[in-house]
């Protein structure tokens, strides 16, 4: 594996050494950050190093999941994992692609607001002025 040279999980002799629980979690997270996309637990196990048991990887991933540092989703019969920060970015990109390619989405996904014409914008600014909390705190009579 090409990462073996820089793998912090091995000492200079390339021999596996014992690592603390926190160190392992950090390492698993960094593996997930390097991953090309959502990956399986066995992929993580492979990347972290040969001496780590699959169940240990699963335990670490579950703990990270509880801390919301990673997210998982179902891919077929297995779960795939990714770092939480990446998940938000990935989701944002997917959402944007959806919004950009589906001009008629507003009938399906209820949007908060729709586009304004210049006239609407003008009107809205004057309405907004009326809606701003008045500085004196006196309530304006709603006499329209």
């Amino acid at each position, binding site marked *: 594996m090409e990462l073996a040279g820089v793998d912090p999980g091995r000492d200079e002799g390339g021999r596996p050494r014992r690592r603390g629980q926190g160190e392992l979690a950090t390492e698993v997270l960094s593996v997930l950050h390097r991953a090309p996309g*959502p990956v399986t637990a066995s992929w993580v196990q492979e990347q972290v190093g040969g001496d780590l048991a699959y169940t240990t990887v699963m335990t670490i991933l579950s703990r990270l999941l509880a801390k919301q540092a990673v997210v998982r989703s179902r891919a077929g019969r297995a779960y795939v994992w990714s770092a939480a920060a990446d998940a938000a970015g990935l*989701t944002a990109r997917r*959402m944007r692609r959806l919004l950009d390619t589906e001009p008629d989405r507003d009938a*399906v996904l*209820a949007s*908060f607001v*729709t586009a304004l014409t210049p006239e609407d914008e003008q*009107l809205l600014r004057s309405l907004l002025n009326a*809606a701003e909390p008045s500085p004196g705190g006196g309530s304006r009579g709603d006499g329209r």
Partner: protein
Amino acid sequence: MGFFVFLPLVLPLTSLPIARLAEHHLHPRNAVRLLSWIGVTMAVCSTLALGLLFVVGTAQIPGNPLPDSWSDPEIRTAVPFHEAVGTTAVVGLVTVLTACSRSLRRHLRIRARAQRALAPMSPSPAPQGPDLVVLPDPEPYAYAVPGGPGRVVVSTAMMDSLDADEQRALLAHERSHLANRHHRYLLAAQLASCVNPFLRPLQKAVGYATERWADEEAAGSVGDRRLTARAVARAALVTRGGGPAPSFAAFAAPGPVPRRVTALLSPALGEAWPPPASPAGLAAMVAAAGTAVSAVSALNAAVALLLLVKAATPW
């Protein structure tokens, strides 16, 4: 059958007055429910009428797959101007069914894509609630995504442009869409307008009324109409530029967002139905009568054709 079969095709015109008056005279919840029911019933009747005319129309097509007896001269003469009408109905029904299925497929596709996009996001521990998904995006947007658990998707740009109270109003608005299943009404109205173009104004009115409904619920939930108005206005002002190009109709009347803000700045509309003698009450009754006549006509025509087909069938 006679002329009765044509009534369901034109009676959706009776829904135009209420579609126009609902905005100012009905509570948005009542408006959404009434207009959706009228739209769906009229659309079903209109499709049924078109289907009956289709049967007559296919009689002219040599080698059509329907039973031979269905092209009996008696059936054909049951409809006035059966040749022109029949051909039009064949084209019409095919067009309608294609438009409906395209619309439905698009609806399902967009929903599925949105849900797939949001799937990796676990329920957030944010204080605003587990159904909220805030996405890092410089483009301001906010959507309610219906589904198993409905999600509210808001971009960071939208969140940043509103203060904390306004954010609460926005979330309450989107949650109202989810809780009241507004997407079902929107889909029903959209399919109805595919079936009969006369129902298009009704679709627009339903779309606007669902937004008003959510606005009213948001105002009730944050307890401040003016704050909700401000949230809508602010969000719209940062959103400008995106979305579909405005139409020329916008010259005459203000668009939906200024109308929503104006409505929120005015006193709330009561939930009571307008009195029957008022314009809105009359319009509602005209539409209800139109719906009833259209249902009766469609049924009448269906039974008439059924009897004719039965008489013409040799067994």
